[in-house]
């Protein structure tokens, strides 16, 4: 990255307020929901109140409460037991409305599908010591149990059956009677009566997980070590959500929050980063994503006919990942699947070789963007740590020193939160830059200009929040009145936020406003801003598919034969 000095010597005072900076146009096209004025009247954060979050974060107690409520509601409405209501909800993605609909349309059909019997299919044995259908031993009546169907098994076999299923994963939530011809569902009540405390707990955890994972409205927060979930209400285009644990993530793809870059680019970028690490090789070798639900599937036994785990249950061929149902004619079969054999013909080592080659060709360019992406990432981590330090230690000191109540010092926290957010955005602009088509010079130039300005602005804010603040903590008399500092930092925070919001919007629009005029305006921008573009490759274009650098004259990629992006 360019040295910090580079950023600081950028036109220090005028750029936030000058009306001809390129960011402003991005305001004009968003329908004017923001007045686009960068002046200091935003200091009071008046615009924060009208940003109602379109999601809520749920703690475990909240989750259980929500789940209990839905089960109670359904159980009351349909007059079924809570265990049955829970089974019905599990089968219908935890939507009371969905269950209603199907239940009143075809109760019998629903009962059959989920295995809720109204009466036993066999008479419960009235022998003194009936025989268990699994171990064929006779047991006293009080040691024999059965589901609603009446098929008798001894409690020990039940316990082993349930335990095996519970240890096999969340599929245990769909457990049925062991009798092969019987589909009677096993409810939580019966599980709780028979299994060990440990298994009971595991089952209950799967039930909670199912509530979050099978429910289209909820997701787990992917933050490290976080156990909260987030419920999302559609109707807003902004998919970035922020959990109680302070981890921000994208609702769509559950990667960390990544505006202005779209989910597809993030996926490509992350895959690219991972391709460098050996970790990926292991994953590639050992697991494949289910072709339908994309969860990684590890093959652990049996033939190539794979069945994804509940709830997806997609059947596919391990070798070619095609649906098993259309596997017959089209492919070459179980151990000689054509798709796979064809791919194998080219050779595993061949593929590795090609990858190595590709990487070498684009490694320089990639490294350029990656380093900057990673640097901003670690700067952000550092800023989070500083924010924490501020919150726990410095703020109190400052409060004493300046005789200000902590509530009046909120502006410092806001500044730090803004720094954290800006680092995040800036980081992703490097992924954005990496995938920005090389031949679009105007866009690239504009992009690099905007990125440079953003970096300079952020450095200014960072400097004020970090270094200037020290003056009010130290023993020396501060150079200026604390109130002056307050309005400077608050002003910078507000201005930087606006700038970054506009930047995000401009990039999300694909810099669609770029035209010759805009580029003419910022014609002088190229020289030495902090934003790093990689423009040494003007005589080439980058393949969208494999990132290989091709000579400008080639219509298709020399490496992977993909046609050139229609630039």
């Amino acid at each position, binding site marked *: 990255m360019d040295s910090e000095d580079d950023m600081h010597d950028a036109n220090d005072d005028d750029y936030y307020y000058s009306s001809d900076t390129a960011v402003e146009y991005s305001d004009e096209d968003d329908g004017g929901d923001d007045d686009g004025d960068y002046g200091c009247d935003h200091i009071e954060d008046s615009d924060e109140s009208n940003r109602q979050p379109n999601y809520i974060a749920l703690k475990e107690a909240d989750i259980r409460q929500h789940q209990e409520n839905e089960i109670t509601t359904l159980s009351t409405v349909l007059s079924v037991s809570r265990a049955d209501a829970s089974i019905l909800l599990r089968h219908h993605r935890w939507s009371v409305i969905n269950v209603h609909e199907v239940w009143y349309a075809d109760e019998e059909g629903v009962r059959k599908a989920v295995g809720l019997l109204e009466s036993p299919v066999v008479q419960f044995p009235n022998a003194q010591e009936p025989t268990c259908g699994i171990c064929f031993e006779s047991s006293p009546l009080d040691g024999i149990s059965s589901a609603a169907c009446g098929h008798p098994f001894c409690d020990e076999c039940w316990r082993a059956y349930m335990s095996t299923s519970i240890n096999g994963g969340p599929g245990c939530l769909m457990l049925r009677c062991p009798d092969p011809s019987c589909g009677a569902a096993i409810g939580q009540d019966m599980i709780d009566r028979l299994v060990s405390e440990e298994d009971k707990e595991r089952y209950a955890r799967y039930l909670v997980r199912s509530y979050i994972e099978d429910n289209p409205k909820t997701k787990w927060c992917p933050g490290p070590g976080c156990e909260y979930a987030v419920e999302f209400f559609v109707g807003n285009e902004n998919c970035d959500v922020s959990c109680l644990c302070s981890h921000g993530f994208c609702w769509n793809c559950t990667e960390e929050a990544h505006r202005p870059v779209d989910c597809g680019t993030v996926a490509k970028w992350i895959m690219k980063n991972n391709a460098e690490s050996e970790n990926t090789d292991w994953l590639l070798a050992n697991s494949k994503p289910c072709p339908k639900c994309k969860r990684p599937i590890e093959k652990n036994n049996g033939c190539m006919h794979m069945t994804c785990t509940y709830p997806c249950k997609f059947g596919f061929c*391990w070798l070619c990942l095609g649906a098993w149902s259309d596997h017959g004619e089209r492919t070459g079969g179980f*151990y000689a699947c054509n798709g796979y054999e064809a791919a194998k013909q080219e050779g595993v*080592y061949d593929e590795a070789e090609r990858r190595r080659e590709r990487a070498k060709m684009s490694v320089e360019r990639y490294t350029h963007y990656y380093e900057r992406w990673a640097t901003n990432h670690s700067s952000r981590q550092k800023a989070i740590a500083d924010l924490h330090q501020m919150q726990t230690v410095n703020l109190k000191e400052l409060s004493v020193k300046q005789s200000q109540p902590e509530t009046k010092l909120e502006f410092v926290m806001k500044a730090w939160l803004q720094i954290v957010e800006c680092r995040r955005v800036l980081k992703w602009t490097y992924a954005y830059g990496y995938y920005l088509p090389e031949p679009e010079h105007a866009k690239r130039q504009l992009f690099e200009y905007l990125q440079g300005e953003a970096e300079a602005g952020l450095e200014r804010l960072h400097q004020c929040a970090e270094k200037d603040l020290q003056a009010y903590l130290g023993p020396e008399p501060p150079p200026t009145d604390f109130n002056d500092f307050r309005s400077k930092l608050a002003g910078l925070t507000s201005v930087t936020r606006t700038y970054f919001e506009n930047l995000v919007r401009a990039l999300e629009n694909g810099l669609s406003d770029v035209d010759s005029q805009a580029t003419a305006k910022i014609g002088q921008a190229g020289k030495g801003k902090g934003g790093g573009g990689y423009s040494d490759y003007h005589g080439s274009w980058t393949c969208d598919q494999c990132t290989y650098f091709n000579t400008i004259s080639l219509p298709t990629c020399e490496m992977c034969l993909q046609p050139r992006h229609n630039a």
Partner: protein
Amino acid sequence: MSFSFPSVPRNFRLLEELERGEKGIGDGTVSYGMDDGDDIYMRSWTGTIIGPHNSVHEGRIYQLKLFCDKDYPEKPPSVRFHSRVNMTCVNHETGVVEPKKFGILANWQREYTMEDILTQLKKEMAAPHNRKLVQPPEGTYF
């Protein structure tokens, strides 16, 4: 009759190993598969080792032949290198991995697998007494 749990019989044990091999092992630097898909007794196998980092073997691909006889896994398979290699435990004429000079074969236990053998051989390549030995040209065979 012993009261311990009866062990998995040879054929089912080999089927397990076959499936594990088809799935792909660890970081992919060792792998193996059956030589003859028609052999119901699954005797002949081919193993592959990609030479470990920080050794003369780095990046080289070695092919091996493993033969699991009727008494496998009570007895270890016979193992020999197909690709030429210079290692202390490998016979220079035949490529045979000499059990006396290679611990896992010398102290064989039925729980050991072909994967273990290949992994151990890879480790052996990076051992101080092997990692700097001059190697025959790549692509030559015993």
